[in-house]
């Protein structure tokens, strides 16, 4: 049950981030993590990871597909500018940066929920 919930939270976070980014700047992804972990309860640790994975999978996958369609032309150049060994690392960094914002957003959401909504135990 908890596994399914964790899994759903990851998917929802990614989906909400996708919708928010249609209209809002990049940092709106923090709200995606925040919102999902505010609505769906789980431990703070799991909340962080659901937010982290939700965004990092979304960003990472998107960067990955863009990069493949582009034949790595741009990512190779950018990786070199930042002294990174290859474009794969650049995709990984993209995923981690997004993930951190999503994760901390989710952590904040989950802690707010813990304060204003009573913790229900199944």
């Amino acid at each position: 049950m908890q596994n399914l919930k964790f899994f759903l939270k990851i998917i929802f976070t990614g989906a909400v981030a996708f919708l928010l980014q249609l209209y809002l700047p990049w940092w709106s992804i923090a709200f995606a993590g925040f919102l999902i972990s505010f609505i769906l309860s789980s431990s703070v640790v799991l909340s962080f990871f659901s937010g982290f994975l939700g965004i990092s999978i979304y960003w990472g996958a998107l960067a990955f597909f863009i990069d493949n369609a582009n034949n790595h032309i741009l990512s190779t150049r950018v990786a070199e500018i930042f002294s990174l060994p290859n474009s794969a690392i650049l995709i990984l960094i993209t995923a981690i940066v997004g993930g951190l914002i999503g994760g901390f957003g989710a952590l904040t959401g989950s802690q707010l929920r813990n304060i204003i909504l009573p913790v229900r135990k199944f």
Partner: protein
Amino acid sequence: MIRLSISLVITISLIYILNTKLGPAPPLGKFLDPVNGFWANAESGPRIDESVNIPGLQQPVKILYDSLLIPHIFAENDADLFLAQGYVHARHRLWQMEFQTHAAGGRISELIGEGALDYDRGQRRKGMVFGAKNFIDNLDDSSKTVIEKYLLGVNYFIENLEYASFPFEYKLMGYAPEKWTLLKSGLLYKYMSDMLNSHERDLENTNFKMLYGKEMMDLIYPDVDSYEDPVVDKTGQWKFEPITKEHIAANASNKESITFNLVAKPDPRNGSNNWAVGPEKSATGNPILCNDMHLGLNMPSLWFYNQLNTPNMNTLGHSLPGIPLVITGFTDSIAWGFTNAQRDLVDWYLIEFEDATHDTYLLDGAYQPTKKVIEEIKIAGGKTYYDTVVYTLFGPVMYDDSFRKTSAKKGYARRWIDHDPSNGFEMFYFMNSAKNIDDYLDALDRYSSPAQNIVFASSKGNIAHKVQGKFPLRGFEEGKYLLDGTSSKNNWSQYIPNDQNAFWKNPERGFVSSANQYPADSTYPYYITATMYESYRNRTINETLRNDSSITIDDMKKLHYNNFSLKAKESLPTMLQYVNNSISTTDKQKEMIALLKEWDYEFSVDSKAATFYDQWYRQAFRDTWDEIRNKKYSLYYPTNFSFVRLMKTDPNNIFFDDKSTQEIESAEDIIARAFDKTVDNVSEKGLNDWATHKSTYVQHLSRQRPLGVYNIRASGAGGDVVNATGSNHGPSERMIVELDPEGVKAWGHYPGGQSGNPGSYYYDNMVEAWATGKYFDLVLYASPEEAKNTIFSQTLTPAK
């Protein structure tokens, strides 16, 4: 509650940090965001046809992109055409357009900080902005219409940008594009003029003459290296009555050397080749016109191909993003191309201020007020710098006690032809719709700068060449040295009439050509001066064209890639003789001499002899001109032609003496010693083939190495070789046009690609072809229906 606060603070701080520019690094979160950040610039195919509504358009415009990403723009009228061209330029090249205008107008400190302040001040004081303002304030009517529509197109694109669609470099450097202005287009025009018409050495000449005397000056820096093969050779046939100079300007009676550092001059190798072959020498009977313009090699490329089609014009060729029209190219009946005219179009005047305030200066016996302009130079991460530039009758005072160390009461005013109002883009507008030689001449009459040798060919079988520009009339040696700025009579007042500029058509020899050499034969009735004229490429080109009576397109390609060095042919035997005269013993020395003796003087990709010769020649050149290199005074290097002549005819010239040794050296000693040094160097580091040694590269304008293309294997050599491909300088494009009456055919390439986006396949897709000699078809279509190889289209429609 505490936990909540902590995670909230962490989240907000993270966002803040990742959304802020840190030093040279862009805001990382914003930059990496795959939706809007740099990933959004990673292009993928296939492209989708677009339709854009643009206000200000009268009729729909169809833009078809061919497989090289060349836009073929079809409009119903000229106004719509230029609006569309502005839109297309901005869409593909916006960052470069703006960056180059920042460079032109002295605004680089705004982007990179205080390190560029001296450069920016120099640009302002040179009169770049002053000239650009005079240019845009005095446009003729046709230029005005063209540029106003062009601005609309550029700005429509800019106004509809959001971060996601910013060109990559804005994201990388963390700034945003500004609105495009008339001044920006003016600055870009001056950027080209400066590159081509600012090679003057008046101050350096003044120093040299003072240090070494007039006789040495004339020996080392003669007005003419060689009259052989000028652009126009009408010996004894100049039939006009030349105008006479009413007053010869006096040199300044300056007794001090100019010891301060002069700002960097444009690359002296900036130059070009062009030629046209008439029907009688062409294998098909159609005239053929060729052009390649030698400039610094940058990404994104300086040039952008486009076809412009309206009921009034149909032209294809190189455009300069930031400026409307086609600069060099062809129409459905004619073709034209440029080489730089080299002429001296800058003079320097010594100004005598009344006092250190620079409020007044001595002119015609009385103190006259100066005009002061305060230049505001913004500096990234620093306080805005305000520079007061003093203007006189002769132009802006570039060097004074605030910019370089001069005495407080002296200033050096710069008089540049490009400070003057001119006819704007009118010449290009007329050339873009030219049908015949009369149209060509009519267009040229509207052209004043930058002065060019403009070659022409038409499908009616005419070829022509004209040296066109606004040339100040000069008395003997007038304007070669620092002039006296206390008399208004010394200012420019007379100019060579347009119809007396060197021109010829359909000469008997069956071809016309230019390669930055001396413009006319020795009987041309006007005094001509320049920093340098080329004396090698012109002879190679003319010899090749003279000896071939059935010229094909393949011959033209071969001539573009002619790697023969006349400089090597004329210097190496003497250099080898000087080495033989000294005692050479080691095996390595013998090996190198054998290698050089077998050399065919070709700068081909795998030649090791070329590498050795080049290193040796440069070493000898450096060692000879040690007085100039260790400059206590501002001086400059003589031409290669002058150096080779000197080593052969005047081996005991004092310049061959190495100042760092006790004994007195001759050319023989210096060249033999340079040989030893080169052999030592080669023994130590090995001898690479020429292409590896030269290691050609095309550098991104920001100098970010990963955005450029490096280690290109290309033949040719800078300067004296027709294929003037140096390491970071060379043919910025090559074009061949066959003026077939059935339909003009053209081929070309340039070292880059049509897209300015480093995330596009089309960013650098022509580099390989450029390096190896493969040409692409440049096709002029009569209508959109005729267009082939269209990869995608844009339809611009009038917004309601």
